[in-house]
Every structure is written in structure tokens, then in C-alpha cells.
């Protein structure tokens, strides 16, 4: 197939043109693009705040910003990255694009709700950007009361409203995925033939619909307390600030799994494709996703070991936190076992997947340190915690996201990205990431607290290393932005299945037609049948015209 042929064939990108055809689309693939553009914007906004933080920490004194500004910087960095990049990134972009395609459906169950969820997301984002533009917010992304509800003089209500509104976009996305996965599977696509990406998104959706409403009502109560002085969390009014922490972490710990489960789904696809093997222990990996989602709801108290909750509660939460490590470890072992005797190729998506496994393992194991009561008391609120969760969220989720974007880029655009540049970028990101965050483990261990803009001079060497790493990381993130845009016009034409991957999404042309498939596929084989020819896994693979 040559270029002109791609351009002549009607597909979801050229079926109609103009801004209206995008802003009023109900095609899940186009909505995925709307999300892709918006989360990319938020990623770079959040990255901008991170840059200022790292620059300030180059020297022990506060010479770039003062304490108040610094407080706002780390708050806005956290709020933007968590609520407006990490949570929607994989589900709303890749999930939106791929969930219907992977199960052989023509769209999500509720296409208009899907578009509405994007508008809600943008509305919430607008509130938060307004709060930032009006002077920012300084409570930390955790909004701990009573500081957030009474004492902070910054734009708490505006930010909280933004997060509240955005939460509904998560809820609607999760609801749409659950219904779609239950009701829209193609004939023959049984539950245990589903790609693990789908299982991961199903588990994520459960957290979306059960966790997000709780943060919503919690933030409403904070706003009510702030506006009307209702005494709910403020101890001066008889309220209990620890109750806020319970409600907050009831959502916000599972939210960590919202961020990492979809990345795990991506990694399962990548590892299978680039080692040409079925994922080892498919059903165990599938149930591990559900296990993480369920147990993840029972561990929130490990954020509160020093908040004055009872020692017994602390012990139980510590035990439960160890338990949630088991399904995560199962996944890591099974991916490794999948690699064993596979015929491995190191294309860029695979580099990200391998990076994910290594970095997620470090992030996960240091999570066990923090789940241990005695150690947590020592490293609580230090850079050790910062390093730990950045290994999970940046080393894990962002790596998975970038791996997925590269892997499905040919499907989304019909073009291939430049492989050499992509491998280089993956390598730069891996090096930059480790140089940024590994020193922070050491900093935290020797006692540097988080959320301070000044520090004793003996911490400077490690901080300079971290800032240097962040600069490398920034280059690594700007590279894909550049060559992916370049590839839209100049990339080589991809064809149906450039990776020789298995899965329904690879059996339809790239870019896919609006209705995804030329005819409804009938599935005859489970996911990852790499030992079989593509045309053996469904009726679609038998090409109509080759």
C-alpha cells in the first residue's frame, strides 16, 4: 500500500474535516485524540512547575523563589500531573482508542457520554488553570485540613472545584468502559480471550466508579467548610482533621492504582508482542489486576501512620499494604517468565516496557519499606517517599504511557515514527529519570524533608545530580513530542500490522475506518496467539484484498 492509497481510502481521520467535526465527534478514536492533545498540554504545564522546583533546589538557599511561591509550585505540579495527566493519560487516550477496537466493537457503549466526559475534563482543567493564573494554591495536592479549609490564603476553592468537576469525567469514562466490556464484545470474544490491556482497564474502571465519588464528596465538604465555616474537619470547630485524611486517601491511594494498572495493561501487550509469546500465566495476570483494584481499597491508612490513627489500625494497614504487593509482584514475575526463551526484539515500545519492569520493581519494593511501620516513621515526609512514588508514577505510568503511544502510534495515525530517534529518546528518558530520582532515595534516607525550598548545604551534591537528571529527562520528553509530530507528515506508511502483533486492532486498516472494522469480527482464539498466524485468530484476519 502506498501513500496515495492511504489518503484515498476513507478512514476516521479523513471522513470529515473542520473544527466542528472534531469538537462534536462521538467517535471514540477522535475523542482519544482530543484527550491526547489536552493531557499533553497538562503534562508540559506540570513539567514547567517541576522545572522551577528543580531549579530552586540547585542551591541550598532560596534564591529563585520564596517559601510561599515554592509551596504553590509543588502544589500545582502535583495537582496538574496527578489529576490532569496521570489519571486520564492511559485510560482516556489509549483506553478510549483501544477498548472498543480490542473487543471488536464499533464504539464505546455511550459515545455521547464519552464526548461529555472530555468537555467535563476541560471544564475542570479550566478551573484549575484559572486558579493557577489567579495566584495558585499552596496546600499540597493532598489539601490537608484545617490548613486547606481555614488557614490557606490561596485559591483552594477554585482548585477543589476543578478537581471535583474533573472527577466526573473519570467516573463517566470508567462507567463507559465497564458497560462496553460487559456488553459490546464481538462474537467469540469471551472474558478469557480478552487482551490483558482490557482486564487492566476493567479493574481501573472499578476504581474510577467506586473511588472517585468519595473524593468528590470530600472536596465538597472542604469547600463547604471553607465557604460557610461548617465545622466538619476543623478541630477548632469540633471537627476531625484525621477524618479528612481517611476520606482523602480512601480515594487517593486507589488512585495510585488508577495510574499504574493501565500501564501494566500496556506492558502486558508490549512484552507479548516483542517476545513473540503468549503472556505467561494469562489468567493469573488478569486476576492480579482485579486483586490490585480490590485490595487497593483497603490500604489507605498507610499514608497516616504518623497522623494519630491507632497503632492497631496502623498494624492492620501495614499488613494489608504488604498484601497488595503480591499481585503486583505476580505481574512482574509473569512478564519476566514471558521473556524467557522469547524471541525478543528491542524496538522503542519494548525499551519502555523493559524500563517499566525495572523501575516499577524499584518503586514497588521501596513501597514495602514505607509500608513497614517502623521504617515509615523514620522516612515519612522525606525525599524517600518522593523518590518512591515517582518511581511508580513516572518510572512506571509515564514509561507505560510512552511505550503504548509508540506502539499504537502507527494504528492511530497510519504512520510510523522514526525508530532510531525513538530508541534514543527511550534511553535518554531512562537515564534522565534515574539520575533525577535515585539521588532522592539517598536524600530522604539521610533526612531531607519534602516540601522545603531551602536545605542544609550537605544535601547539595545529591540535589545538583537530581536537577541535572531532570534536565536530561526534559530533553527526553521533548524528543518524542518533536518526532511524533514530524511523523504525522513524513513518517513511512505503517500498514495494518507493522509489529506483526496479535489482537483485533491490528486486523483492521491503519488508520481504522470510523466503524473500526470492515465487518464484525468473529473471534476464534485467545489473546497473544503468537504461535499462530494472524488470520487464525479471527474471521477478520483473512484479508479481503491482498
Amino acid at each position, binding site marked *: 500500500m502506498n501513500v496515495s492509497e492511504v489518503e484515498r481510502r476513507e478512514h476516521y481521520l479523513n471522513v470529515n474535516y473542520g473544527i466542528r467535526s472534531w469538537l462534536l465527534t462521538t467517535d471514540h478514536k477522535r475523542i482519544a485524540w482530543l484527550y491526547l492533545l489536552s493531557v499533553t498540554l497538562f503534562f508540559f504545564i506540570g513539567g514547567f512547575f517541576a522545572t522551577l522546583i528543580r531549579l530552586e533546589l540547585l542551591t541550598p538557599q532560596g534564591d529563585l523563589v520564596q517559601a510561599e511561591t515554592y509551596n504553590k509550585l509543588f502544589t500545582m505540579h502535583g495537582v496538574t500531573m496527578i489529576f490532569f495527566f496521570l489519571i486520564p493519560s492511559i485510560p482516556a487516550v489509549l483506553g478510549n482508542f483501544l477498548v472498543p477496537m480490542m473487543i471488536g466493537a*464499533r464504539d464505546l457503549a455511550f459515545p455521547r457520554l464519552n464526548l461529555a466526559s472530555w468537555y467535563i475534563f476541560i471544564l475542570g482543567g479550566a478551573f484549575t488553570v484559572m486558579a493557577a493564573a489567579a495566584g495558585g494554591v499552596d496546600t499540597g495536592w493532598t489539601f490537608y485540613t484545617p490548613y486547606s479549609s481555614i488557614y490557606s490564603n490561596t485559591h483552594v476553592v477554585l482548585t477543589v472545584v476543578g478537581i471535583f468537576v474533573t472527577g466526573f469525567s473519570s467516573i463517566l469514562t470508567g462507567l463507559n468502559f465497564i458497560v462496553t466490556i460487559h456488553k459490546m464484545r464481538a462474537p467469540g470474544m469471551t472474558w478469557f480471550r480478552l487482551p490483558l490491556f482490557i482486564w487492566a482497564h476493567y479493574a481501573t474502571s472499578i476504581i474510577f466508579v467506586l473511588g472517585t*465519588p468519595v473524593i468528590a*464528596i470530600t472536596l465538597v465538604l472542604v469547600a463547604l467548610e471553607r465557604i*460557610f465555616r*461548617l*465545622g466538619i474537619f476543623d478541630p477548632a*470547630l469540633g471537627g476531625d482533621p484525621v477524618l479528612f485524611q481517611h476520606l482523602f486517601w480512601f480515594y487517593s491511594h486507589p488512585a495510585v492504582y488508577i495510574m499504574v494498572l493501565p500501564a501494566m495493561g500496556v506492558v502486558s501487550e508490549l512484552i507479548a508482542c516483542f517476545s513473540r509469546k503468549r503472556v505467561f500465566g494469562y489468567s493469573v495476570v488478569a486476576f492480579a489486576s482485579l486483586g490490585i483494584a480490590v485490595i487497593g481499597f483497603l490500604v489507605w491508612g498507610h499514608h497516616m501512620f504518623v497522623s494519630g490513627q491507632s497503632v492497631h489500625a496502623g498494624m492492620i494497614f501495614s499488613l494489608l499494604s504488604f498484601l497488595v504487593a503480591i499481585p503486583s509482584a505476580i505481574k512482574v514475575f509473569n512478564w519476566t517468565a514471558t521473556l524467557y526463551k522469547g524471541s525478543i526484539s528491542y524496538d522503542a515500545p519494548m525499551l519502555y516496557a523493559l524500563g517499566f519492569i525495572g523501575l516499577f520493581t524499584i518503586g514497588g519494593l521501596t513501597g514495602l519499606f514505607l509500608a513497614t511501620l517502623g521504617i515509615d516513621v523514620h522516612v515519612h515526609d522525606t525525599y524517600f517517599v518522593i523518590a518512591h512514588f515517582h518511581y511508580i508514577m513516572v518510572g512506571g505510568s509515564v514509561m507505560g504511557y510512552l511505550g503504548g503511544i509508540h506502539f499504537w502510534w502507527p494504528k492511530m495515525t497510519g504512520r510510523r515514527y522514526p525508530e532510531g530517534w525513538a530508541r534514543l529518546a527511550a534511553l535518554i528518558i531512562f537515564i534522565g529519570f534515574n539520575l533525577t530520582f535515585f539521588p532522592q532515595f539517598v536524600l530522604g534516607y539521610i533526612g531531607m524533608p519534602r516540601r522545603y525550598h531551602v536545605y542544609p548545604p550537605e544535601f547539595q551534591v545529591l540535589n545538583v545530580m537530581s536537577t541535572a537528571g531532570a534536565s536530561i529527562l526534559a530533553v527526553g520528553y521533548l524528543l518524542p513530542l518533536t518526532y511524533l509530530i514530524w511523523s504525522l507528515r513524513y513518517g513511512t506508511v505503517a500498514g495494518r500490522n507493522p509489529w506483526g502483533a496479535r489482537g483485533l486492532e491490528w486486523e483492521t486498516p491503519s488508520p481504522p475506518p470510523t466503524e473500526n472494522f470492515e465487518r464484525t469480527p468473529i473471534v476464534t482464539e485467545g489473546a497473544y496467539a503468537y504461535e499462530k498466524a494472524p488470520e487464525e485468530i479471527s474471521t477478520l484476519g483473512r484479508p479481503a484484498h491482498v
Partner: protein
Amino acid sequence: MSKVEPFQAHHFDDVEQQHEASWLGMWVFLATEVMFFGGMFAGYFVYRHWYLQAFAAASNHLDVLLGGINTAVLICSSFTVALAVHSAETDRRKPLIAFLLLTIVLGLAFLGIKFYEYHTKFEEHLVPGSSFSFEASLARPAEIFFSFYFAMTGMHALHMIIGIGLMTALIFQARRGRFSSFYYTPVELTGLYWHFVDIVWIFLFPLLYLLGRHL
């Protein structure tokens, strides 16, 4: 593929699949609603446990008679909405519209009584804030009770207003003949939502009005 009905969206294989999807979607949404109200219930229970005496005292300031009447009104409205769904199911347009109207009237009656109750609380200085006044030793925790009272019943009232809006839209659609025994999913789902809102009240009423009285 079976015959395509006009109300069937393009991405569904058949009407049955579309109906099942909508039905499941509504139940998932109601699950999120349970969690949404659950956050407030959890908070209420914590403070009730802490400030048992104050909560009992504050609870005695609520009007059980009005709350009871409102409970009856809502239960009746659940019945009328069930009749509306049944009318749609059996293809009777006029009763459908009538029962929807009746449900709206009952919903408005509930809101009216609720508004009157809020008004009395305002006059009795029981609205949290600077003008709040209560028996001095219990004032702080009693204010928390009323914070939850207003937050929970307010959120419930907001859900009722949304429900009334939905049913108004249904009436207009029903007048245009959109529903028949083949297709009445929106009526069914709105009915489900309305029942849910009623059930929330069935929990709120004893929790806020009744529990304290036995102490």
C-alpha cells in the same frame, strides 16, 4: 443483523444489546452514587460516635412530623413512578404522562416541605455559621450535626431537583410519542434513579430525625 429500529444507535448490534447496556450503565452510575453519599454517611457516623449526646439533643430540634410526612410523600412518589414505568411498558401514553406528572407534583411537595423546614431552622438559629445558637455546652458538636443535616439533605434535594428535571423532559418526549412497549428505556432508567433517591431518604430520615429520640 436484525431489523434496525429508529431508536437504535449505530454501534449496537440490536435493540436488546442497547437496552442491556443502558440498564447496566444506570446500575454502575447508582453504585457511584452510593459511594458519593457513603462519604457523608461515614462522616456522620464518626461524629455521632464521638458526640452522641449532642447529636441526640440536636436531633430533637428536627420536626419528626414533617419528616414523616415527607417520607410518606416520597414513598408515594416511588409508587407513582413505578406505575409510570408500567404504563410505558403496556403502551399507554396518557397514564404514562399522568403518572410522571403526579410524581413531579409529589417531588415538588417534598421540596416545599423541606424548604419550610430549612426556613424554620434558619429562624431558630440552627443554621451553622456565625448566627448559630445552641445550648452552650453542646454548641460545637450540635453545629456539626446541623452541618451534616444541611449537607446531606441538601445533596439529596439536589438529586430530587435533577430527577424532576429528567421527568419533565420525559413528559415532553412522551407527548411526541417517543415511547412504546418496544422502547421505554429512558422511562425505566429515570424510574430507577428516582427509586434510588427515595432510598437515600429512607436512610437519612431515621439517621437524622429518629435515632436521637430514644436516648
